[in-house]
């Protein structure tokens, strides 16, 4: 392994080229509405890396964009759409009409996909749950088997472990060794990093390792699991990142309006992904005024605690 101890800082393009390959399974959007790694996902779209399997809980329009770009052949998730408005139209077209290409969906609930990753993270073949017994999610679904508990005889679900090839996680800050710190609601980011073979971390800021060591409670992804760390300010826009920027509701509404037809969805990708070289150009297009409106306007620094000895 020997993944620890090296400087892992890379630029986004080379990091995606090195870590993402056609046919891979990738966990992203692991924290539900927050911390969605749009910046990294857009680079995957620009590089045209295809035949992907995407793994997520409630998966917002990041997944819809990758599907619309024709890069996804399978989704393993609890929900795919636009959390602000409902439907993801690229997802619908792919499932209902096979456009731009057919999409296999392995349905989960938020709990079952969490448990699948937890089992994967622990090196086990399955997880155990009651939910979603009674749901049609488990019918003809290769990830679920009903079994009888050998101890109690209870009817339970055996959920197949999920080990993604790669987890892409966005956090507030990381050091050059890849120790990633995040605060706020995290979904299953930590489990995804543990379950995946490789981890690509993007962050708002690269900080000195002393900043990490001064506050070890906040380390969500330890550097020993991380293969590359990319400094990518606003890398999760339009998703919120606590302490940096809030959800850009306007962006989600516009995406909903502008993706109802395949042609419009292609125009949207052209405007926000293909016609920009990277995140810096994306932010220029977004505009300073819009960014200012999303920044923290009600500061609430947390209290500090004694961590000495």
């Amino acid at each position, binding site marked *: 392994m020997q993944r620890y101890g090296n400087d892992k800082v890379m630029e986004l393009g080379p990091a995606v080229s090195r870590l993402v390959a056609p046919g891979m399974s990738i966990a992203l959007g692991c924290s539900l*509405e927050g911390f969605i790694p749009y910046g990294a996902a857009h680079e995957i779209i620009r590089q045209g890396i295809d035949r992907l399997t995407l793994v997520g809980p409630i998966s917002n329009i990041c997944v819809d964009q990758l599907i619309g770009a024709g890069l996804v052949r399978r989704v393993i998730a609890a929900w795919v*759409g636009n959390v602000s408005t409902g439907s*993801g139209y690229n997802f619908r077209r792919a499932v*209902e009409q096979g456009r731009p290409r057919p999409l296999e969906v392995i*349905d989960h609930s938020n*709990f079952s996909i969490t448990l699948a990753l937890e089992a994967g993270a622990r090196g086990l073949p399955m997880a155990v749950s009651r939910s979603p017994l009674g749901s*049609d999610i488990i019918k003809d679904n290769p990830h679920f088997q009903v079994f009888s508990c050998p101890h109690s005889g209870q009817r339970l679900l055996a959920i197949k472990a999920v080990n993604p090839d790669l987890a892409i996680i966005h956090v507030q800050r990381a050091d050059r060794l890849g120790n990633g710190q995040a605060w706020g609601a*995290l979904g299953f980011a930590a489990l995804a990093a543990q379950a995946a073979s490789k981890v690509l971390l993007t962050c708002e800021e690269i900080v000195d390792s002393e900043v990490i060591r001064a506050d070890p409670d906040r380390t969500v992804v330890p550097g020993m699991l991380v293969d590359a760390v990319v400094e990518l300010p606003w890398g999760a826009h339009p998703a919120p990142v606590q302490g940096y920027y809030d959800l850009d509701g306007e962006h989600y509404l516009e995406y909903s309006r502008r993706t109802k037809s395949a042609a419009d969805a292609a125009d949207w990708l052209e405007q926000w992904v293909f016609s920009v070289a990277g995140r810096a150009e994306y932010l220029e297009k977004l505009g300073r005024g819009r960014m200012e409106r999303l920044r923290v306007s009600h500061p*609430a620094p947390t209290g500090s605690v004694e961590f000495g000895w």
Partner: protein
Amino acid sequence: MSAMDYTPAEIMVAAAAREIRDGEAVFVGMRLPLLAFCLAKSTHAPGAVGVFENGVLRDLPAEGPIITMGDTPNQCRALKTTDLAEVMTLLSGGHVDLGFIGGAQVDIHGNVNTHRVATPEGFIRLPGSGGGADIACLAHRLLIIMQHQPHRLVARVDFITSPGYGPTPGWRAEQGLVRGGPSALITSLGVFRFPAGRALLCHIHPGVDLEELRRRTGWELEVSPELETTAAPTAQELAIIRKFDPHGLWTA
């Protein structure tokens, strides 16, 4: 107060809030369930705590406007920000009293569909479960909130995302579910309860015609002999709802 003074969504929020008891742990969804939680907190249930599936536990309404549970004001001044595994563990362990879900279809047994709906041309793929199935399986009580339309209240859902009571008594236990099930279905026209695992109309909203409600119900309507009229939202309740939804984004 006349029926013209509030919207159908506002009476749904008021009726939903009344289902929350003081001191309960409530698995909160967005939109109307969030407003119901904020209303209950501000009135009869100040001790209720909200559990959000992205990993937020909070006992104060967010101080700023939010569209999703991940928005930054919903995390600021939370009691705990954590991960999905922890909130689902609370649910699975029986620590969550009440959960809310909505959906595209519900049937007489309280099964909810958020996966796929058949159409004459084929089907419409919906986003999926999210945490809905988990809440329906594991919360002590489930509240379903839905617009009352014949294509939504259907004889049989096209897909059971979130299980209700099933066709026979004991169906949930046979599946392996140890608690829970729908406690109420709150629609834009009335409130159903499930005394024998079947939807029974117990409240009809003020000004709603029973025959109109029957026409808009896709199953053979069963009406409680003690059918009551839903209490209209009070001026205080409306003021609170409008404070938390000032532009009528969810309740207009």
